[in-house]
């Protein structure tokens, strides 16, 4: 029972990393691009 729970927790952890990475990486890239352009514009 405990090992089932552990397996589920590991699998959930992996899924969470993949899912958040899938949406987070493009979003962070887009925000960084915008910030870089904004800084460039002020210079």
């Amino acid at each position: 029972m405990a090992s089932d729970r552990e397996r589920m927790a590991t699998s959930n952890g992996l899924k969470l990393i993949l899912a958040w990475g899938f949406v987070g990486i493009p979003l962070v890239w887009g925000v960084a691009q915008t910030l870089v352009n904004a800084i460039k514009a002020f210079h």
Partner: protein
Amino acid sequence: MSFLSRERTIAAPGYSRWLIPPAALCVHLCIGQAYAFSVFNLPMSKLLGISQSTPDDWKLTELGWIFSIAIFCLGASAAVLGRWVEEGGPRRAMFTSALCWAGGFFVSAIGVYLHNLWIVYLGYGVIGGIGLGLGYISPVSTLIRWFPDRPGMATGMAIMGFGGGAFIASPLSVWLMSQFSTPTHIGVAETFIVMGIVYLCFMMVGAAIVRLPPPDWAPEGYVRPAQSTRLVTTENVFVYEALRTPQFWLIWWILCLNVTAGIGVLGQASAMSQEMFKGQITAVAASGLVGLFSLFNMGGRFFWSSTSDYIGRKNTYFIFFALGAVLYAIVPYTGSIHSVALFVVCYAVIFSMYGGGFATVPAYLRDMFGTRYVGAIHGMLLTAWSMAGIFGPVLVNYIREYNITHGVAAAQAYNITMYVMAGLLVIGFICNALIKAVDARHYIKTPERDTASQAAVAGE
């Protein structure tokens, strides 16, 4: 297809609720591209002339209609199809939204290839607009069900994605066009096809991982309130019954006024900053400022909706309207003392509250009408956005033109606009003050009554 059915979407025990926000973001980050559509306007106005527009090329005014049609169809489809989304479940809605959104790009690519603007109106405007509406509302009620303890934060995360989608789409579109363009050809059609494929895949991932919580599921340690509090109900209101309550229309006006004030100056922020601070803010710096304001628009969606979980929805909107009115009234003063820093601070807060207004409203509806039909009711409410999309820019442009033709200097031409916007927010403040709990006669009392009301509507 049974894979899409509501029943097949129920989560197995142990499914992490933190997988639902990424599922919602998969959709919202894609449809948020709508805010960046303007990057195509200039290239699409030179498809025949390449280096400059020819008389047969599309005019910028004609191209402006593509975005307007899409936003109109967003509101209309969300209002008409809200109940279908709610009852069919989030996966079916996300799947359909992905097909419409990507299909809109493919049809538009054909329109660009044939140089027929009506096909682009049909593709991006109508088909894509329906995808926008379905995609916008589909994850909202799902998130509210998974996060009964933090509904504002949960919906804020998704709606923040809508604001953030433009940050990805804008540089991506520019890069793709540069890859497909040659000295004799502008690669808009190819860019549309690639973006359609990318968005289709991305949104399908969202549709695959989205789940509904099992009935009566609650997060660990969360105790469902047994009774309604003054402004948070534990009851449910049927979707069409909500339209008969003053609360729905008051919230409709709250959203409409908040968006009108924000959207009106959003499109003018670049020109306004340059005209108010001539010699201090260049065109390039103004474009950087607009990018900065968009970041506040996105961040405000998460910040304010999460804050509303602690201070309450009504208090959050009180802050939007009271602080917003003061800030709009201060903007002309920043011009008169030539303080760019104060201008930027005022606008940054204004745009954070503009985004916050969008993100907090689903939780406000949930507080008033319960969780059962909140997605469909939210869909109906989005007509306020469509309306504000017309009111806001028209109001700002009309007032500015009136001032200029009556001899007001360009730098001062925006002052009256700012005071009018502050006035709109005062009206919003009053609407918010009038909100009380929904009368008990509007609540769904028994399952039988629910079925009866649905049957009555279906028979109409």
